[in-house]
């Protein structure tokens, strides 16, 4: 296989600029990632999800909120409604498409909040140690001691129902494992020679944590977050199902299942279709996470 000049440039072992060194490392990671078929499938599904969410108004055949009681509970494959209609006569496909936006919104927000909090708490507690470590880890233990959904339920009950509160509740329950991972990584990193070396150059704790410890923790956190994302989507759907997440008429997938539950014996598709969507996205995140682990894990000995 002959390489394009750009590929030679990216794969060079003798980079000549800062940018080339950085891009070359990214590209090598991508090449390794590409060989993992399942991970590519996962990535494909997620890209599709993003595409659908962005172009929802153009893709949806109907308005997801318009009710038509005369046309309720149409089966799969009926005229104009490929996935049928729900109990209020709304087009399930259109609701599914708009629901992708909500799912994506939850995923992105949780992915921004939980790992960042975990990273901060974990690295600070691991690097500083002593009393600070003790206090931060006991707080983490308190959060870890509760089952995630129960704690999220309690938070939502206090904060009130709604997507934003659901996201906050999920984030508050999701960060402790990340803090644990980040702390464990920090403990092994902080006593290594390269940290001693930079300390001997007079670097302070802030610089060491942000510039030397974070880059090494982040890859294992990314892997963990992608693997956890499936669980997070399920919790969000669970909250929606219990009526504590997205509120009607918002087309959140969990809430859609909850609505369809009443007709599950006569009109199974109303609950099944959003269930399949949740399943597909959860699976995609898991596949992606597996693939990322192969590429990013510093312990795999590739780099």
């Amino acid at each position, binding site marked *: 296989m002959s390489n394009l000049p750009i590929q030679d440039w990216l794969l060079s*072992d*003798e*980079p*000549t*600029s*800062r940018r*080339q*060194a950085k891009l070359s*490392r990214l590209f090598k990671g991508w090449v390794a990632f590409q060989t993992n078929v399942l991970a590519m499938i996962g990535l494909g599904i997620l890209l599709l999800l993003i595409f659908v969410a962005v172009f929802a108004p153009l893709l949806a055949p109907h308005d997801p909120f318009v009710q038509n009681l005369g046309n309720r509970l149409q089966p799969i494959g009926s005229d104009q409604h490929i996935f049928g209609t729900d109990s209020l006569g709304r087009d399930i496909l259109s609701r599914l498409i708009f629901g992708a936006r909500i799912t994506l919104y939850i995923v992105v927000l949780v992915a921004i909040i939980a790992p960042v909090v975990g990273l901060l708490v974990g690295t600070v507690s691991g690097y500083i140690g002593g009393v600070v470590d003790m206090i931060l880890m006991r707080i983490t233990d308190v959060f870890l001691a509760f089952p995630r959904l129960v704690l999220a339920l309690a938070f939502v009950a206090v904060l009130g129902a709604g997507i934003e509160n659901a996201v906050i509740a999920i984030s508050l329950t999701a960060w402790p494992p990340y803090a644990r991972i980040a702390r464990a990584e920090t403990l092994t990193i902080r006593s*290594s*020679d*390269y940290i*001693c*070396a*930079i*300390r*001997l*150059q*007079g*670097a302070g704790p802030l610089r060491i944590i942000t*510039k*030397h410890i974070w*880059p*090494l923790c982040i890859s294992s956190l990314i892997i963990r977050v992608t693997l956890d994302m499936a669980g997070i989507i399920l919790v969000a759907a669970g909250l929606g199902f219990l009526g504590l997440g997205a509120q009607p008429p918002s087309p959140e997938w969990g809430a859609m299942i909850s609505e369809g539950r009443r007709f599950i014996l006569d009109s199974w598709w109303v609950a099944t279709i959003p269930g399949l969507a949740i399943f597909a996205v959860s699976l995609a995140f898991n596949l992606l996470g597996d693939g990322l682990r192969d590429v990013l894990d*510093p312990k795999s000995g590739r*780099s």
Partner: protein
Amino acid sequence: MSEVKNPKLSIHDLKVWFNSGRDKVDAVKSVSFEVAEGESFGLVGESGSGKSTVLRAITGLAPYWSGSCKIDKASLTGRRRSREFFRKVQMVFQDPYASLHPRHTVDQVLSETLYLQGIKDIEHNIVRLLSNVGLTSKFRFRFPHQLSGGQRQRVAIARALAGQPEVLLLDEPTSALDVSVQAEILNLLNDLRNEQNLTFIFVSHNLAVVTHMCDRIAVMRQGEIVECLLADQLGRGEISHPYSAELLEATYG
């Protein structure tokens, strides 16, 4: 022990221990020595004899120590070290595979070090440092995993020299390298010492290496200096302590 006039570094009754209470481990028990400016002083001993721990105590990386430790007559206390200290004293670690950050390019390592040492004109200095340790600028943007062991150790030496220190602590800098590369690195260190008038404290378990590198040598065993020798004496085999004889025997057979 021979007295040194105007010592660059003087250590008196240094004790270092790990853990406290019942788990206390005495790594170094009362070590004293002085090193003159521009001298190369060797510490030899088997592994676990506390020779690396002495260096770690000087640089503030050891948890607990007592005794007195002076650089240019300024006493060091506790584990904190001033910026001046880091400008004067630098260390090269044993394992070049562990002493470079795996996600930082050579360029990042050196430019951050220069920045921390408060040196302007980073661009120019990186090129200078690399050529000082015998690396061309094509190595500049590589990650550690794209370098060989010897090249990594050269980068580590360049990093230690970035702030133009006066004292270089060398913690078995060649023990992780194969023999031919060892000689290269040792010669490089000797050249740098002559050019920049550095003071070396060279820790090694290899008597041959220490004899080649150092003017004076202290033999350590179980946290104590058992004998202090001149390199010439050692070369002629004029040793008095049986443990030194044992080490010599083990090195040359």
